[in-house]
């Protein structure tokens, strides 16, 4: 089996639309959570919800990057995917070193082009309007993977995976397995999401899980999640090909585990998350003692953070309270189907820089969780093994294991 390394990174996120900007925010603890900007289609731009903050991308102008016809045919989530994938592919010089048919594109997206759908449906229901002729291609959830393949002329296995908030982690994990097995020699893997429409804001408001203040994962006074958007992409390839061409290696993916709670559509269960972590470690041929960082799913809801902590105790036993852990959602918000990609990117950068990011804005970790939450500032680390957890609504769990490259 091939070893699989990361040779390219790209992102469009609320804390930076280049990897260097993302990294700077990550380690300085600069949050992308901000007052909700005017929402298209909502009366006076006001979504009319009980919360006022979201993690939005403010510095993205598609016309700077993408041809007008493609802009007309795509939703914002796909535009994020195109640009983030280009960044990663360019950094890796992917197209120069791999045949188009040997490259896979595996991406996660939970919401598709729902803002485009909503806009057309508003016209339909209120004035029996015609739909824009590109509505279908704007809204299909696989548009991201399709457009990246068209943009980069990649002809290998190409698909989008939809597992709610675990979508991107499932995508990265499956891409990892495909490269490890030799099915593809390289892959672009990640996630893309731009769900912040009026209807989306309102639907989440009704669920009563969005923080009226700001997402504070694992804090004693945590009061919910903060919605976000963005995309992040990793180029994966075999260690052999990366070394043969002397590529810069940013990290290594060593394991992937997934599971289903088979229990409840919204209430997570610790056993499912624990099973996914155990499977990722087994897949990495690693023992729990080797884990030196966990990038938690850490949404900031009472239920997630308690259940995830409990799962960590199940897997790591007495050591659970000594493993440095953080949730970077306090910085980049919850980008739903793309979230796992933003967190994988954060984990890769953390291992590469030897600095574990803090859980920004949290000064009072919940003592009942009995975890080693990184707060206030990044914490230095030796080379280590890290887990990046994604635990989705519907009980779909995905965990990837990454190692420092040295």
């Amino acid at each position, binding site marked *: 089996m091939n070893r699989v390394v990361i040779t390219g990174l790209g992102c469009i996120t609320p804390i930076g639309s280049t990897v260097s900007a993302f990294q700077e925010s990550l380690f300085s603890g600069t949050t992308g959570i901000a007052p909700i900007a005017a929402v298209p289609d909502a009366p006076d731009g006001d979504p009319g919800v009980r919360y006022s903050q979201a993690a939005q991308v403010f510095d993205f102008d598609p*016309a700077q990057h993408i*041809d*007008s*016809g*493609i*802009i*007309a*045919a795509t939703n914002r989530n796909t535009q994020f995917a195109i640009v983030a994938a280009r960044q990663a592919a360019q950094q890796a010089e992917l197209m120069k070193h791999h045949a188009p048919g040997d490259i896979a594109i595996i991406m996660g997206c939970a919401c598709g082009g729902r803002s485009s759908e909503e806009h057309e449906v508003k016209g339909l229901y209120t004035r*029996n309007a*015609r*739909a*824009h*002729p*590109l509505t279908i291609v704007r809204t299909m959830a696989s548009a991201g993977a399709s457009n990246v393949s068209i943009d980069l002329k990649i002809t290998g296995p190409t698909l989008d995976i939809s597992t709610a908030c675990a979508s991107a982690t499932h995508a990265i994990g499956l891409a990892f397995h495909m490269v490890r097995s030799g099915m593809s020699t390289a892959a672009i893997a990640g996630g893309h999401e731009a769900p912040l429409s009026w209807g989306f804001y309102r639907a989440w408001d009704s669920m009563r899980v969005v923080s009226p203040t700001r997402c504070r994962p694992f804090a004693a006074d945590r009061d919910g999640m903060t919605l976000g958007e963005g995309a992040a992409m990793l180029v994966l390839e075999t260690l052999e090909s990366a070394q043969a061409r002397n590529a810069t290696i940013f990290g290594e993916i060593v394991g992937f585990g997934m599971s289903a709670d088979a229990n409840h559509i919204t209430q997570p269960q610790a056993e499912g998350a624990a099973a996914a972590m155990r499977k990722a470690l087994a897949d990495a041929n690693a023992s729990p003692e080797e884990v030196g960082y966990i990038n938690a799913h850490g949404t900031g809801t009472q239920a997630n953070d308690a259940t995830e902590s409990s799962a960590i105790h199940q897997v790591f036993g007495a050591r659970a309270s000594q493993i440095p852990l953080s949730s970077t959602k306090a910085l980049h918000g919850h980008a739903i189907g793309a979230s796992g990609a933003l967190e994988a990117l954060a984990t890769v950068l953390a291992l590469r820089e030897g600095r574990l990011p803090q859980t920004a804005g949290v000064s009072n970790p919940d003592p009942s969780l009995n975890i080693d939450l990184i707060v206030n500032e990044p914490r230095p680390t030796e080379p280590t093994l890290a887990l990046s957890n994604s635990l989705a609504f519907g009980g779909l769990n995905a965990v990837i294991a990454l190692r420092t490259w040295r």
Partner: protein
Amino acid sequence: MDDTAQRCIVIIAKAKNIPTDTITLDTSFEELNIDSLDKINISFEVEEAFDIAIPDDALGSLKTVGDVVRGVDQLVAAKAASGSAPSAKPATP
């Protein structure tokens, strides 16, 4: 330049993200790098703006901005003559 032409040019300029003064009636779609996606997008915006329905077989014959403007004028005139919008609503399945 008449009102129809001005409005068509504004729609095309917006769709292509270019200044209106780079477009005249003689400007061809080819010069503007209008691809099939642009064309379908611009056609829809023109239909919406003038409340007309461009027939399928007319789309293929549009080569210049002037073609669009003349087509719009004809469809608007036809609509006025018949007293109602020509099948602006989608067919019932």
